[in-house]
């Protein structure tokens, strides 16, 4: 169907697509969970917030599971190296993720304020720790991660948990968290009313500015402070997965190479900077029409796409550079599954993603409404 080179590029796009899908859908739930303590002031209001995503959080979480599993299938060495290298960060994420399904499902099962506020805290932690860790992890990918392979391709990671946290990676962590919070706020503005919607809008427009500013600062740091990586030997884009036989150097500003070579790509980060301002402006509108609310949500989704793409394009073709052994860096050209597997998985994706999008949209449509305090009080025993 496609040659190996094209397949590799398609899979770079698909992995990006799945992670963006995760950020837009499950990231929305995480934003909602993170906003919960700030926008809901009573139990009924908390339930309003939770029930805007109550029917969808589980389906949304599958974007994350599928992105992870696709990483396993398409880029096994990246999956192996990243997950074992970032061991404690991954465990921290995992243990926080435990809290969400339980909080959603168990919170309203018992009518005790203490029980419920404890689950609210759990939901907050479960919603904020994962995006923070993912942001920090992405920052580390940009900086390079210390790992190397032996002759049998066994990976050894030589960094430590605390070394993951540098000013730059904390900043990328903030970008990630702010992205989710802004996204969650635009969702709540669409799906709630009165006080909850107002508080969400107020919170969201501040976060949007924070997001844009921290994204700009992170960009400046990538320009000046964070060394990029560059492949200096020829890359056999049709070759088999052998990530240890190339030459790589680090140099300041190398992560801007792709933008310099193809100036049109600058549109991506520029959109990432400007779109949050659009969101902030729309959230500031006093009497919001439906189209204003929907545009804000779309603006927020575009922000997410642009920011994730900005990082992806900066690093392309790198996926996970090695700071200790740059020539062992993982590229999307030399760290992939075999041609047969990529072909097979592409067919599966081509068949199932449209089906998934179809029934997911149907479910969202069916559940679409403004969730109000009155509705929650009426359905007190069946709602989340």
């Amino acid at each position, binding site marked *: 169907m496609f040659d190996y080179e094209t397949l590799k590029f398609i899979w770079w796009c698909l992995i990006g697509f799945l992670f963006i899908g995760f950020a837009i859908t499950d990231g929305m739930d995480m934003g909602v969970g993170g906003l919960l303590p700030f926008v809901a002031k009573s139990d009924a209001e908390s339930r309003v917030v939770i029930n805007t995503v109550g*029917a969808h959080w589980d389906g949304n979480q*599958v974007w994350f599971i599928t992105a992870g599993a696709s990483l396993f*299938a398409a880029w096994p060495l990246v999956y192996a190296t*990243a*997950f074992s290298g970032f061991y404690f960060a991954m465990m921290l994420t995992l243990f926080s993720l435990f809290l969400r399904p*339980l909080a959603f*499902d168990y919170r309203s099962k018992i009518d005790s304020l203490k029980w419920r506020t404890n689950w609210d805290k759990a939901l907050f932690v479960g919603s904020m720790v994962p995006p923070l860790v993912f942001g920090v992890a992405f920052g580390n990918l940009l900086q390079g991660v210390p790992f190397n392979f032996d002759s049998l391709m066994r990976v050894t990671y030589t960094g430590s948990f605390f070394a993951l946290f540098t000013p730059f990676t904390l900043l990328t962590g903030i970008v990630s968290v702010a992205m989710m919070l802004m996204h969650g706020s635009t969702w709540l503005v669409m799906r709630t009313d009165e006080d909850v919607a107002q508080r969400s809008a107020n919170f969201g427009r501040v976060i949007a500015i924070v997001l844009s500013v921290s994204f700009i600062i992170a960009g400046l740091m990538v320009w000046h402070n964070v060394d990029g990586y560059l492949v200096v030997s020829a890359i056999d884009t049709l070759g088999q997965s052998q990530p240890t036989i190339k030459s790589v150097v680090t140099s300041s500003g190398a992560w801007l190479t792709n933008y310099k070579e193809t100036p049109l790509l600058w549109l991506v980060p520029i959109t990432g900077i400007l779109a949050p301002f659009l969101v902030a402006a729309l959230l500031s509108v006093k009497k919001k029409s439906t189209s204003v609310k929907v545009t804000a949500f779309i603006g927020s989704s575009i922000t997410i796409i642009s920011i994730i793409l900005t990082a992806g394009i900066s690093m392309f073709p790198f996926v996970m550079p090695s700071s200790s052994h740059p020539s062992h860096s993982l590229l999307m050209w030399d760290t992939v599954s075999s041609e047969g597997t990529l072909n097979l998985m592409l067919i*599966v994706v081509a068949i*199932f993603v449209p089906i998934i999008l179809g029934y997911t949209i149907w479910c969202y449509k069916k559940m679409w409404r403004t969730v109000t305090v009155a509705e929650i009080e009426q359905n007190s025993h069946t709602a989340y």
Partner: protein
Amino acid sequence: MINETLVELSRWQFAITALFHFLFVPLTLGLTWILFIMESVYVMTGREIYRDMTKFWGKLFGINFAIGVATGLTMEFEFGTNWSYYSHYVGDVFGAPLAIEGLMAFFLESTFVGMFFLGWDRLSKRQHLMGTFLMALGTNLSALWILIANGWMQNPVGSEFNYMTMRMELVNFSEIIFNPVAQVKFIHTVAGGYVAGSMFVLSISSYYLLKGRDVAFAKRSFSVAAGFGLAAILSVILLGDESGYEVGEVQRVKLAAIEAEYHTEPAPAAFTLIGLPDDEAMETHYSVKIPYALGIIATRSLDEEVIGLRDLQKAHEPRIRNGMIAYEYLMKLRNGEDTPENIVKFNEVKHDLGYGLLLKRYTNNVVDATEAQIQMAVKDSTPAVAPVFWAFRMMVASGFIMLLLFALAFYYNARREIEQKRWLLKAIFFALPLPWVAIETGWFVAEFGRQPWAISEILPTFLSTSDLAVGDVMFSLVAFIVVYSILFVIEMYLMIKFARLGPSSLHTGRYHFEQAPELTSGLRSQNS
């Protein structure tokens, strides 16, 4: 060198997290169909009690489902975090069914689970029923793909080792899908899940019948569970996965270990009902045998042999020696001596590379293994017998007790005498843990019986780990034990609370605790 402590801790962590996750999965597998059956009756007859049944058992299903989702995330992470060499070595093959599981099954299940709980007022009756069906379908498809992945670990067909990338690569995906081991495992496992779901409904309904409350509700639930459960337990037993033990070397080893058959016996082999396996002497002491039974069960014939462990090990020795040659050529190929002759020579012996890797436990270079080390690797090439032997017997015993209970339940229920058979209701109530005993021991037989391999004959378990510090894994293992214990307590608390409360928890005003408020106000006020 291999760090044995790291390997042990990694194995314990995987075993604990997988066994724990598998407490919840089977119930989900079974309950989704039971919910679908109940809701179908509701949609067809329009009788409210069936909607209440769907909603109430759905409530218990939800409590179970949430923790199943949470603990399932661990499995997604753990291959990468703790088994990174495994992930690299087989990701090209093993990753595909996992990703397909996500795309084909998880999305379906998880999207419609939300509709099941919160869509009652937003969907038409038929739409909601269709959602329940898709949820059940998704759950079962997910089991299909995970067992295709697991079946490949037991019998790795359709793939080949590539020395350039130093990993297994996909050659023929349809062989992997139609792997006979995967097929029988799927049937056996999902049917086991249906048994768990049925026993769950049957036991809790028995409790209501014994207490004499919500009798109409309990009897109907009992009927559904007795019928579905009898069909399920018959499938589990008749379509047990013995037939899968015919295929592949490691499955044959597992079968010999299950039977503690150290010596090859003339066909048809006797079935060892009970005995004391002794790995040192390679003998089973005090065994009680049933003539012909094993031969018939395992080979479905009277003239095929079941090979004993001594002979199996004996056959592994030349393969280990071959594996040393394979390793020698692999090193040459990877160090730039990839001449056509070397490639040909490597290809001649590469199917035994995995056996050569067994020596890595004793010598990193493999090729310099001493005679004594080779003998140790031969010993390693089959699992410890006693744990597999006993776990299998616990599984089978639980299975037959459940068969008896489901048969009696079905019989007396059909005769409408079940309410009078209090001894049976009590027995069923106390049998509630049995499906879990059978399922967990069955899982143990399948996976412990696969040792020393992570991927049969290809990758030893001890080589599969991540390169982590012992302290790292110790820390995470303790964290898992602590956190899982807390989650389990919370889950059981809610489950027991709502099971005791029964359909009154739906707040319809039609059930027991809503009829006599002065007696039950304490229980009622706390719940939604």
